[in-house]
């Protein structure tokens, strides 16, 4: 590739620039460092990571008993069914929690799409209150702000403990378990600050909901109930799952 640089024009005039002395090192160093830092470096650390931290290096995936991937413990999922704890709002398109394209809402603080009557905050407040009413519970406390706002990534796996607390009566009623039992489960999935000082206390929504389905399944199966059906079933009866309480007591 550098064969033609042997032609002798090295006698650069006093005013001119010997371009060969600049271009050759530029091109060769880019090729060299591309191979070193663009190929060798990623390859070597990928190899190390795959051996030392295989779970994390492959995306902290959660699999079911038969080995199918349910999700990742780091990536939030859409929960709209009232029998589950709901996560943050997600602004990804075309559907919420689309892992293929992370996105925040990017709404400015005065954007009507955020704070207006039809805005995302008000819609979420309405949805939460309607879900409570349908479950036959009333919650006096104001809704925590993280439950009505969209996360930065659109994939936030966490909610605050307060946001879990707000939803606890609804989930307990719909699953027919008493609130202290459910409280214990929520506490189990509440992480404190990292190293006691970093970040915020938080609840991993996916892991909490998976534990809910495992320990207190809805309809005995614990399988997913499409949200439209769930809303229909949620209306008339509160104690839809009487058999689920046995283990809790």
């Amino acid at each position, binding site marked *: 590739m550098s064969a033609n640089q042997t032609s002798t024009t090295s006698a650069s005039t006093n005013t001119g620039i010997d371009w060969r002395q600049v271009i050759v090192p530029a091109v060769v160093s880019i090729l060299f460092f591309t191979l070193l830092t663009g190929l060798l470096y*990623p390859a070597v650390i990928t190899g190390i990571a795959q051996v030392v931290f295989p779970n994390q290096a492959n995306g902290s995936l959660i699999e079911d008993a038969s080995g199918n991937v349910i999700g990742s413990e780091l990536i939030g999922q*859409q929960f709209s069914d009232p029998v589950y704890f709901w996560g943050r709002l997600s602004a990804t398109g075309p559907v919420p929690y689309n892992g293929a394209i992370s996105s925040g809402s990017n709404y400015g603080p005065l954007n009507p799409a955020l704070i207006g009557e039809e805005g995302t905050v008000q819609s979420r407040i309405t949805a939460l209150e309607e879900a409570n009413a349908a479950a036959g519970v009333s919650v006096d406390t104001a809704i925590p702000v993280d439950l009505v706002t969209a996360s930065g990534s659109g994939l936030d796996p966490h909610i605050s403990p307060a946001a879990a607390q707000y939803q606890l009566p609804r989930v307990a009623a719909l699953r027919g378990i008493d609130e202290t039992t459910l409280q214990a489960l929520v506490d189990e999935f509440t992480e404190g600050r990292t190293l006691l000082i970093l970040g*915020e206390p938080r609840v991993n929504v996916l892991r909490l909901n998976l534990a809910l389905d495992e320990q207190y399944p809805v309809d005995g199966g614990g399988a997913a109930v499409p949200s439209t059906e769930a809303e229909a079933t949620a209306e008339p009866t509160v104690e839809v799952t009487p058999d689920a309480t046995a283990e809790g007591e």
Partner: protein
Amino acid sequence: MNPYHLIQYGVFLVVLLLCVKPVGIYLYRVFEGKPTALDFLLRPVERLLYRLLRVNPANEMTWRDYTLAFIVFTLCAAGWLFALLMVQSLLPEHNPALLTTPMTPDLALNTAISFSTGTTWQAYGGETTLTYLSQALGLVSQNFFAGGAGLAVGIAFIRGLAREQGTTLGNFWVDLTRAILWVLLPLSVLVALLLVWQGVPLNLNPYTQAATVQGETQTLPQGPIAALESIKNLGTNGGGYFNTNAAHPYENPTPLTNMIELWSIVVLPAALTYTFGRMIGRTSQGWFLLAVMTLLFVVGLGITGLAEQQGNPRITALGVDSTLSTAQPGGNMEGKEVRFGIHGSALAAVTTSNGATGSYNSMHDSYTPLGGMVPLVNMLLGELIYGGVGTGIYSMVMLVLISVFISGLMIGRSPEYLGKPVSVDEIKLVGLYLILSAAVILPLTALAVLLPAGRAGLVTNQGAHGFTEIFYAYTSSFANNGQNFAGLNANSVFYNLTTALAMLAGRIGLATLALALAGLFVQQRCRPPSSGMLPTDGFTFGVVLIAVIFIVGALSFFPALALGPLVEQLRLY
């Protein structure tokens, strides 16, 4: 703010400050060619490379040759990345079903210039635009190039002040090589493995399809994420693997990775203040710069943290609980992640905007007007609070020189810095350096606001906030930062070309002026310190310096800030 948040801020700063001296000494040894612990491994590689480059490492360059080498290297790197991006769709790994954003020539050009200048502004979402090959071979390596070249220029600038009666500033190829091999590469390996331990993926698997609890399908992107994540911060580049950068849980899964990533951004620029002091033989001058930087950092952090914790009054008015308690972060959580809360996000906003690194972990577009103005002002001031790797030190010294000049005029002494006279030629270059930002950012912002092609980018927000989005875009491009108010749709021919122009002006223009200034200083003698000199490391001078920083920044940009965030803040309440 509760005690945890203050402790978190404090721990970050203390860890950073504790690293300044050891890392600063290491940088000093690397660039002065003194023995280091890694020599046994790296010296053979270095010797091989010089043979391939046909470079004699003992041959030093004048400022002109050094600048030329830097510019040619930057442009060649841009050309190579442009070519790679243009052919990525022809390579076997390309999957058009997942990569839905087409790599048009203007987007490829913008991306190529963006990465080669260390801006890493991204007009696209990584997970929908780039193949693994492009991410690794193209972007990961460019992060090393731009970081290494920036560090080299910074070192050359310091040599201009440190040497006397010379003509040369060092050899660009040697500085570049040593910056990559001795500094960026070993640190990147270390940081990348720490990040993987905490959950950042590092693999070559295809995207995973998950069957979710509610019976839907979720695509989980994979790839060499940690490999990019470490160097994008260490090289103060900041372009994310994903669309939402370090807000994405795969890029920044825990509060600990947040701290590691933010540390990676500022550790080298902060340590360079010690390297500076050591190279000029007066460490107190380096500590002085570090103290001023840290003070300004804390001020910005306080404003952003308080403004964001205050929350959005319009949301609170809807009956939402925005108060901070032990059970919730409260505040303005739109665009923020729960694991970082308000203050982990504010720390990132202030660190990344000062550090010329666009790796935000929350959506600045959704910040309160004052909270979002702090990152904007940090960039407008010239990213001199720690700053980009290599570029931060000369950004700060430029303001020091102006302060010396003004103080000299006020007290009737001929202005000097480090024993070197600051006379007409020097101050002309400093003046050009300082005026360049306004001369590029403001006309481009005005142009975008005037033209339909510019206003077409306002797809999310309108009014004063829309103006701020455009202003932020050009500020970030010129400052080679790369973070954005992401509501602006910047992937259009208009924005791809105009932001690329701002990036080139900010990178090559500022570096050329800094090196030219170093070329003047290197020829002068250093007069020994005497009682007749204005001390440039004391409290009084610190006050002058901070005043000058804000006056220069405010005079240039106050009208534009008034049209954007300030008017929005008044409307919010």
